[in-house]
């Protein structure tokens, strides 16, 4: 308890609380004041010491961005990591201190006392609203500002990367990574931008809950469009199509009749289960046989949810992955494995697969 109190007192002395402060567009005063005020993904302003040297990530997507902008040394604590067994080799390769920074095991989130042991100047936490109880708990008990992470577009992702690089004083590297992302995406968009509307297939994006899909205001929607497809929800009359994760039913899906079904990686379900009309997870996929995508065998899946995580700087790789499936003839020359390897080298300094130092 003494440690926490001491930590809290020390932190409260050097960290300002954003509440009630005047709103600014981006950030101000890094060199002059030794502090920087930034706007988080929720639109809240937070003020942290500049350059920020100790950050705790309770959200993995943003942590990937921090590593990409060269912030490995500035990460002092790491919370939940889903399916850690598959990801740990990568994180260890790009950050030798990864294991020491872990504040919890697997997908468990650490408690506030454990977070305090990492002596953070800012904590990154996934939150979709200002009133998040988790944010309040950390801010009020530890007196540490919390950066609310929430991404639902490509712009959000790049803005977040800029902000992270600014926090740690590595703006140049941030710009460099954003440039790398844009260059990789242009390999796709230069081709798909020239496609006629008739050449773009309608796509049903299938999240893990099967009838949950990508709304018109979502990163997955941007991914589909830039990869040369059209989100099938454009033809849906229901107003919920504009939310991030709308849920359809089978009749609505049959009526929309997508030409392509693109699945997010699903451990319990493969494209072949859908095209074969199997019954999986209580869903009888033989009732999907009338859907154009199923009839034509155009059901695809993101093969690796980590490597092609499009809420992370690896979004361009996901775009190449999807574009190759949507337009195999137009992207035949683009080698996904080679592109992935080069991207990993450029962004993280390691090869893929294997994560050998470049």
């Amino acid at each position, binding site marked *: 308890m003494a440690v926490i109190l001491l930590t809290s007192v020390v932190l409260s002395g050097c960290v300002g609380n954003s509440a009630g402060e005047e709103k600014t567009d981006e950030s101000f005063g890094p060199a002059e004041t030794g502090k920087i005020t930034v706007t988080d993904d929720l639109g809240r302003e937070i003020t942290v010491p500049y350059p920020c040297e100790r950050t705790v990530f309770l959200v993995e997507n943003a942590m990937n961005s921090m590593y990409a902008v060269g912030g490995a040394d500035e990460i002092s604590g790491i919370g939940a990591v*889903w399916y850690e067994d598959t990801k740990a080799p990568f994180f260890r390769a790009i950050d030798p201190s990864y294991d020491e920074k872990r504040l919890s095991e697997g*997908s*468990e989130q650490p408690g506030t006392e454990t977070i305090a042991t990492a002596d953070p100047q800012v904590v990154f936490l996934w939150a979709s609203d200002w009133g998040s109880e988790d944010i309040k708990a950390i801010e009020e008990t530890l007196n540490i500002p919390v950066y609310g992470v929430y991404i639902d577009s490509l712009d959000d992702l790049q803005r977040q990367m800029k902000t992270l690089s600014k926090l740690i004083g590595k703006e140049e590297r941030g710009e460099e990574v954003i440039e790398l992302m844009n260059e990789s995406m242009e390999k796709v968009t230069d081709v798909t931008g020239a496609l006629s509307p008739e050449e773009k297939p309608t796509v049903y994006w299938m*999240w*893990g*809950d099967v*009838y*949950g899909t990508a709304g018109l205001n979502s990163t997955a929607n941007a991914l589909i469009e830039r990869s040369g497809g059209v989100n099938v929800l454009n033809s*849906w*009359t*229901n107003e*919920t199509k504009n939310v991030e994760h*709308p*849920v*359809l*039913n*089978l*009749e*609505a899906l*049959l*009526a929309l009749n997508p030409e392509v079904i693109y699945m997010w990686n699903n*451990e*319990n379900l493969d494209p072949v289960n859908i095209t074969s009309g199997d*019954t999986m*997870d*209580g*869903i*009888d996929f*033989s*009732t999907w*046989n*009338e859907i154009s995508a199923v009839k034509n065998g155009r059901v695809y899946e993101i093969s690796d949810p980590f490597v092609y995580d499009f809420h992370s700087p690896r979004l361009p790789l996901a775009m190449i992955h999807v574009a190759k499936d949507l337009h195999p003839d137009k992207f035949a020359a683009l080698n996904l494995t080679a592109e992935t390897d080069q991207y990993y080298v450029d962004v993280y300094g390691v090869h893929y697969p294997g994560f050998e130092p470049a």
Partner: protein
Amino acid sequence: MKFPENEKTGYPDCRPEIPFYLEWRSLAFTGFLLLPIPVFFVSIFLGTYPLSPPELLRVLLSHFTAYEYSYPSVYDTVIFNIRFPRVLLAMMAGAALSTSGATFQGIFRNPLVSPYILGLSSGAAFGAALSIAVIPELPVQAGAFIFSLVALGFSYVMARTGGQTSTVALVLSGVITSSVFAALLSIIQFTTDEKAVQSIVYWTLGCLHTSHWTKFLDSFPLVAAGCLIIYLLRWKLNVLALGEEEAKAVGMNVELYKAIFLIAASLAASAAVAVAGIIGLLGLIVPHILRMIFGPDHRKVIPLSITFGAAFLALVDDVARSTFGFEIPVGIITTLLGAPFFLYLLRTTKIGGWE
């Protein structure tokens, strides 16, 4: 005017006798018994797929009669593989939960009892969560069904002492069992990923959007068996509802019949919950609505619970699947529709038969 003489009293009857078939309760009784038929036909006309009623009618005619009509094959999928099994599954779950609720209320002589009193829903939710998040090889329906029965068995064994199973002990052991399985469910939800938690929550809210023929056919024998046993022995529930001492006084083997009713009601409810998720309030309100209208006699309440429960849930599911264009878990609608209606009946009538 001369009134006919009453056979029992010998005095003239001032009110002319109303034929049985014209009495409103008898008409209502017949109407409620037959309700599933019109509800079924209305329900198959509803859905989000744009299929006009005349078109649907032509498809039905061409399917069941010699009438010839050419139509896209997707219509067959929508009508016969989506709407038919879904409406039938909703009806089956509604019948099972209502009948089970009426039975439990009779046995426990308590109007607040629902089919979930002995921990059935908590056990089923735990089983479903186990399947969704921990053992994907175990089908969700099987997990839910197995653990709902485990929970029931656990409650029953805990309550049974010295060859007797007192009602109070059963209720208390049901509360304990529910708490234990709720805690186990929380552990799974706490340790699993976001998507799995979402699936678990969706399942626990009760949803029929994944209905298909196999689900219906797998669960139908168990539901039918449970409901049939209760239906055939329904008059014994009247005796049990008098109280255990009174039932023993008239020579009834109380322990035997209590066990039979518990097993039959649990079997039907477990099979329904396994395929439809946890549908709240239905098993509580349907029997009460019926008692308020037709009185407490289980000889009427049980068959009406089967038919009215079936029609009620099918109609509620019509709202859930057709009104918004996307799926609202049916359990939410049963609660939102059922609670105010129940409140209205509660305030305007006596608590049908319990007072």
